[in-house]
């Protein structure tokens, strides 16, 4: 049985009383995390791509409009009490804001004591203290420098590492990391990402890494889903997609990333696509059609299916339909 599976997940927000326009924040999304060997899966996308909606759905904070989320084969919305308890413990998260996740009223110790109490992880205070210290050491913090402090007395990097320690303490099988380093200084990002890789390997924990930053994704993850306006544009093996993107959107995205090398400067000038009138999204065709340099008439008519463009790489784009067999469209 797979650890985590998402099937045809769609989320449509609100139903306006007077205004009746609603676009899907997430549209027919499917994904599978086997769980035998730990893996880091990246969900990449810009603002409005639906990646945060996906995180909230996966964590059970939002209910899907259609589709289902299976944890250990069981729909998370149809779980018994004890199954839900296990789900809560085994699927954990790390959020973007390493300050806001702390309740300013409490010392950081409370973060650990709450989970220890709720999930009965220790039988005594001493044991609780011991496992807390152990978790802090795993993420490279010295417990006596951390415990007893209020969150504002710690640095951003320390706070985020405490969050990892907290998640780790629960011995989860899956950690949803929602933009965990985007508010961390560049010189510390690397260390946080190292910890991810280390606990993935040492403790068999899989990650769902949600980010807008493809360079950090490339550093740590195994596979990737590229989202645009709620739909998957391209998915598959990270190396293939970063080095050899096939979908025009992925290509645009990767070409826009500024490379930290003065010898490789941007080529070509981007016209401001946002300057024009608000884009009308075609509700039938490809969501990227209005910005796509290769747009064809059928792109706006019908949603393109996924075509296999490499061994473990799929792109939802008609460009790879030319030969009929997607496999051959590989460049």
């Amino acid at each position, binding site marked *: 049985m797979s650890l985590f599976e998402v099937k045809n997940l769609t989320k449509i927000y609100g139903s306006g009383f007077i205004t009746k326009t609603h676009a899907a924040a997430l549209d027919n999304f499917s994904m599978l995390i086997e769980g035998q060997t730990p893996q880091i899966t990246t969900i990449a996308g810009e603002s409005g791509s639906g990646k945060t909606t996906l995180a909230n759905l996966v*964590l059970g*904070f939002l209910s899907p409009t259609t589709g289902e989320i299976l944890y250990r084969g069981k729909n998370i919305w149809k779980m018994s009490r004890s199954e839900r*308890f296990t789900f*809560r*413990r085994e699927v*954990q*998260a790390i*959020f*973007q*804001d390493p300050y*806001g*996740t*702390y*309740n*300013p*009223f*409490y010392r950081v110790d409370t*973060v650990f004591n*709450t*989970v220890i109490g*709720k*999930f009965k992880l220790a039988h005594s205070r001493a044991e609780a203290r011991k496992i807390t210290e152990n978790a802090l050491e795993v993420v490279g913090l010295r417990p006596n420098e951390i415990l*007893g*402090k209020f969150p*504002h*007395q*710690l*640095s*951003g990097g*320390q706070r985020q590492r405490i969050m990892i320690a907290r998640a780790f303490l629960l011995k989860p099988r899956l950690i949803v990391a929602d933009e965990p380093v985007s508010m961390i200084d560049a010189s510390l990002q690397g260390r946080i990402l190292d910890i991810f890789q280390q606990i993935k390997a040492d403790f068999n924990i899989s990650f769902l890494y949600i980010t807008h930053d493809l360079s950090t994704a490339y550093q740590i993850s195994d596979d990737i889903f590229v989202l645009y306006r709620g739909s998957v544009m391209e998915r598959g093996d990270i190396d293939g997609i970063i080095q050899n993107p096939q979908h025009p959107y992925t290509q645009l995205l990767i070409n826009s990333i500024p490379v930290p090398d003065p010898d490789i400067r941007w080529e070509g000038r981007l016209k401001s696509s946002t300057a024009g009138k608000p884009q009308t999204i075609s509700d039938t065709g490809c969501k990227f059609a209005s910005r796509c340099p290769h747009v064809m008439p059928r792109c706006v008519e019908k949603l393109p299916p996924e075509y296999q463009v490499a061994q473990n790489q799929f792109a939802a784009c008609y460009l790879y339909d030319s030969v009929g067999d997607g496999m051959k469209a590989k460049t």
Partner: protein
Amino acid sequence: MAATTATSTETVEVEPKPQGRISGIIRYWLGNWKLSLGTGMIVVLLGFSVIGSLQTDFKKTRVGSSPFSVPPSAEYPLGTDNVGRDMYALMVHGIHPSLKIGLIAGILGTVIGTVLGLVAGYSGGLVDTVISTFADIVLTIPSLMILVVLASYLRSTTIELTAIIIAVFAWAGPTRLIRSQALSLRERPFVPLAKLSGQGDFEIAIRQILPNLLPYIMAGFVGSVSGAILASVGIQLLGLGPLLTPNLGMVLNSAFTGAALFRGMWWWWGPPAVALIVLFVGLFLISIALDEFANPRLRGEAK
């Protein structure tokens, strides 16, 4: 820009400065002149009333217990009114009942307001719409008007009944205040974290949201106490409310109906006016200090 400079100095601050919560509160209280002055004013007033009432016969507050309309003298330190009541006795026995009205109405209003505000703000949706609409309506209807109608039908009332009638309208302000804060606290990232830690909605509301509301609840409480006293004196000036038990509103009312101003009897209307001003200013100082505590931005610009 301005925000970055603020955070940049903040993130640099990694030096530990551990301190106890209680001792921190006491230090803040003493270090803040508004808080200490405000509390001091209330304590002095209450002390005057309590100590005075212990050594002054309650009978002196009765009509005809003393000569009429005597200016202050050694025997009658604050003089007497036009029906022979000792003003000093009236004052010492009258201050704490007025405070009592404020406290009862304030506590009721704050408790109800906190519960409703927390429920509305945290649950949102229909519950929020119903509660906040109702609070808006109650805020729109001038409470003094309804109090007048209610009190005019009830006529002779007691201190406690007056307090309860006032409390019927005292919850709406705190409800709105607490609701808006709970609404924004609900969106803070520590709420989803608490969910992941296995806390249920009720537990999150009580253990995560409520502690952060404390300064607002305290400021709201002080505001309610002062509002309740204001309202009680107001309806008494109109000739309603508890006129039998000595209290500041009743003394002021009798001074007013007895034309104390016109007759130049400053010792009659002066003392209750001064006591009320001390009371209101004291409560006001405490409430703005608590407000500044809740919104740190207000602190920097105080001078």
